[in-house]
């Protein structure tokens, strides 16, 4: 209940802020993750090993992103970037602190949720679209656009198991970006398809940024790319904020600490 009312309050008072993270920490329990059965649980409980071995993926991160911001997140592998994105996307619930967002989110973190290899491409577009929160009428209207962008027009009624991995990735990207969201979350590790399609993807994302003025969260360990695209950035290492500010400065600091 408190979360609901806080969210309602946020909508009234936040003004231009579309993402507000307050003192967000994320703790993973390494010991309990491997517990598979009641027996193991009881044994560990008796041995008092159950709640040891905590892993702090994010440590007290606060962040405010305004409407229209293009915000970068840099850090090495395992620094907590993806955890942060998943919290903002609403997939993960933070262990402590709060995360509030306003508007629709298009998370280009992991694509193709719900794709079933036995179903046809047509059926998968509707299933995936529904899971992304699209309305049926919206998918009906944008169906041709999705198909055209993904370049799968001739294979619409084939089961997806016959598709190449490139085709699946194209279709997934196409469904995910057909909407103009309020917040776009882009993970750079999401390199989709061949060179030509990657260019097409970048053009589409650029259009969302430049034409539609969508708020963007961009994650990368390629700092040059972050500098090129983002205005502001944050650098996270081992779940702890290192520095934040204008993108060039943050990227410079990140590079110099890694001997580059």
């Amino acid at each position: 209940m408190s979360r609901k009312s806080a969210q309602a309050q946020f909508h009234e008072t936040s003004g231009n802020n579309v993402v507000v993270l307050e003192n967000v920490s994320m703790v993973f329990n390494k010991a309990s993750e491997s517990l598979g059965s009641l027996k193991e649980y009881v044994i560990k409980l008796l041995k008092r090993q159950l709640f040891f071995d905590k892993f702090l993926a994010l440590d007290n991160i606060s962040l405010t992103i305004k409407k229209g911001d293009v915000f970068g997140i840099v850090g090495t592998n395992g620094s907590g970037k993806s955890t942060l994105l998943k919290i903002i996307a609403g997939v993960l619930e933070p262990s402590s602190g709060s995360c509030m967002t306003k508007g629709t989110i298009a998370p280009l973190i992991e694509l193709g949720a719900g794709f079933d290899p036995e179903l046809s491409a047509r059926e998968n577009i509707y299933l995936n679209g529904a899971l992304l929160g699209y309305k049926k009428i919206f998918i009906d209207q944008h169906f041709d656009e999705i198909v055209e962008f993904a370049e799968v027009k001739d294979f619409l009624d084939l089961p997806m198991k016959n598709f190449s991995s490139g085709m699946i990735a194209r279709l997934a990207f196409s469904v995910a970006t057909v909407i103009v969201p309020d917040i776009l979350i882009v993970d750079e590790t999401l390199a989709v398809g061949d060179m030509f399609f990657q260019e097409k993807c970048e053009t589409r994302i650029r259009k969302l940024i430049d034409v539609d003025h969508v708020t963007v969260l961009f994650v990368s360990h390629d700092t040059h790319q972050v500098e090129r695209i983002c205005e502001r950035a944050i650098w996270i290492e081992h779940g702890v904020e290192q520095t934040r500010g204008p993108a060039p400065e943050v990227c410079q600091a990140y590079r110099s600490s890694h001997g580059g």
Partner: protein
Amino acid sequence: MAYTRDNLKKDAFILQMLVSRDFKLKYRRSFLGIAWSILNPLLMMIVMAAVFSHVFRFDIPNFPVYLILGMTLFSLMSVSTNAGVLSIINAAPLIKKIRVNKLLFPLETVLFELLNYALSLVAVILVMLYFQITPTINILFLPLLLVYVFMFCTGLSLILSALSVFFRDMIYLWGVVIIAWTYTTPIFYHIDLLEPWMQKVMLFNPMFHYVNYIREITLWGVTPNLTNNLICFGAALITLIIGLLVFRKTEKRFILYV
């Protein structure tokens, strides 16, 4: 975020898509396809009726009708909860990728089985025609009964799906419980066959009440009284509430365990 009409619409669309996926996958590449939903209970009934009326010589009037009514309703519960146990675990790839109302997954398994049950009613009608049983006006209670059973199964599936995320043992344990439950519910025998103390215990078995209810309204032409309805509804409501509480309390931690 507060649950709005818009959320409800989106969730309904997701449910519709998931159910239609399951239908497409279930009979994929089978020659008779959806006809199996009707044939399966029919064939099962014939086998069971042959065994129990010739080998055990139960003396129940219209035994095949008695049998198929109980069997189909009980299997609605057993099949949907058996699928319900796995519903969250099977949805793990989805839950890890996107933000989605997790309650939809156990709910979907029960909805899917309810639709299958509706198809199996065609088999029931065929058997009733064969034995020339004319339903009375009491058959109109059927939708009410289905609401009770739907609530009951959803409640169970919510509890089971949540618990099995943390303890996979639930999956196997539930299989055993279902077997025991099948034999302790008067599906292919009559309750009078039981010892008096067991008959008393049976009053605490919701499935006994549901199976009895459907036989009353279709086979025996009896109007279920208020007490009957209250028992059936009460058991369903309590199960559903417990299910919702358990699920809501644990769902935030699912992603760490699936």
